[in-house]
């Protein structure tokens, strides 16, 4: 089943910068796809289109549901986005409240919310952190809480924007092991070739808002000419 379908998608920011230029691809259920590209290639812009935070011209379809004004809430339940900077994702006074944010707005009851929060924190190995303040945690811990907060949405698709950014090697390893265990359809935008090699069989290369290549990660990351053309070498 096709989980993500994007056709002829273009997007310009208000200052006129063309961030996405007629791109199209599809992702099947359970697939893990990497997105690479130089700074400003359009990776984050593309990720933000998956749950309708940004809406450009063209088709974005999530699990058969086209993303538009009417379907926003449905789509946002299906797609969980983990932002590059966890400080921008964790906005509540305690870890519990942050992880409970999505289920609360999904209309879950208090016992259900308690169960979901507990399961989400356990899934990322952060059980027992419920009453801590997110701001006082390390970057690695914040990342895990941000992932738990997104898991609490019970999404079908997980999208990560630079998941390994600012992490020390040990935290990075822990995070990779965590992500490998998720059965969700995954979209991972990253500069970290090792992350893509480990997590994604398929990789899409972006350059100036256009798709330069779409294929097996192993082949793409070994193609020096392609990487050079994408300003990645």
């Amino acid at each position: 089943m096709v989980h993500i379908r994007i056709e002829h998608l273009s997007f310009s920011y208000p200052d006129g910068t063309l961030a996405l230029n007629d791109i199209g691809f599809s992702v099947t259920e359970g697939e893990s796809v990497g997105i690479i590209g130089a700074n400003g290639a359009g990776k984050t812009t593309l990720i933000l289109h998956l749950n309708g935070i940004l809406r450009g011209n063209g088709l974005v379809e999530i699990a058969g549901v086209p993303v538009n004004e009417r379907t926003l809430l449905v789509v946002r339940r299906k797609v969980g986005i983990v932002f590059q900077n966890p400080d921008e994702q964790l906005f509540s006074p305690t870890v519990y409240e942050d992880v409970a944010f999505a289920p609360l707005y999904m209309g879950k009851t208090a016992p259900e919310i308690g169960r979901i929060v507990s399961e989400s924190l356990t899934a990322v190995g952060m059980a027992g952190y419920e009453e801590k303040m997110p701001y006082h945690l390390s970057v690695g811990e914040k990342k895990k809480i941000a992932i738990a907060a997104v898991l609490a949405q019970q999404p079908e698709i997980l999208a990560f924007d630079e998941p390994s950014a600012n992490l020390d090697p040990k935290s990075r390893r822990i995070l990779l092991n965590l992500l490998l265990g998720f059965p969700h359809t995954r979209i991972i935008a990253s500069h970290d070739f090792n992350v893509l090699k480990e997590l994604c069989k398929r990789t899409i290369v972006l350059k100036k808002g256009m798709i330069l290549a779409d294929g097996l990660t192993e082949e793409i990351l070994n193609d020096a000419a392609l990487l050079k053309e994408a300003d990645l070498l």
Partner: protein
Amino acid sequence: MKHDFMDVYRDRKSFIHCLDPRIKIIAAICCLVFFILAPGRNLAAFAWYAVFVGVLMALSGVPVSFYIKRFASLVPFVALIGISVPFMHAGIGGVRVFLILMCRAMLSIMLLSVLTASTRFSDLLKAGESLGFPKLLITVLSFMYRYIFLIQEETMLMKIAWHSRFFGKNTFKAWKSLAGLIAAMFLRSFEKAERVYLAMCSRGFSGQAKTLTRFSISFQDILFLWATILFLAGVTLNGSYKN
């Protein structure tokens, strides 16, 4: 980064903490009405109000040092606003009006400090919403609550950047650059706030204030509200009658 300057004492289990936030808001509004409308000549009533607020502070179980700090940080603003009052009335009357104004302001500040120190801010918002406060006001306050941490964090970062470049020299240029820095801080906070809003939207935020707390009004809440109203009314009317 330390961000625990709000809701520091929210998890205490004092009598005041356990009251329903809606009852606390209604009681606080009643108190404010009495504080503001009590006749200025009724000094005994102000003394009783102060005793009443003192009792609430003691019942809240929040350290007095917290109230003193909050009081000290807010009173100068009130004094600044009221500073012209003594000059608007002839003779000693102006000073008296100023002192009564300060009295009312100090009582109100202490009362609201008890309210905010003993209630989660998110619960206050939800209680306000359920009491029919304007939705726009609640939304603005809820964003202020989330973004105040961001502004504080940006302030800390900018402060570090400023100190690292001026080597402690207290020159005019250094202070001039501080003005630019403050402007940059607000711009950075604005952009960061925008990204936080996007993160909230992506997790289903709909503009409504929602909290995990379920409110329920108990007999204790009703008793507290009536006791507050009767006490304040008694003190005010008694003093006014005598005068």
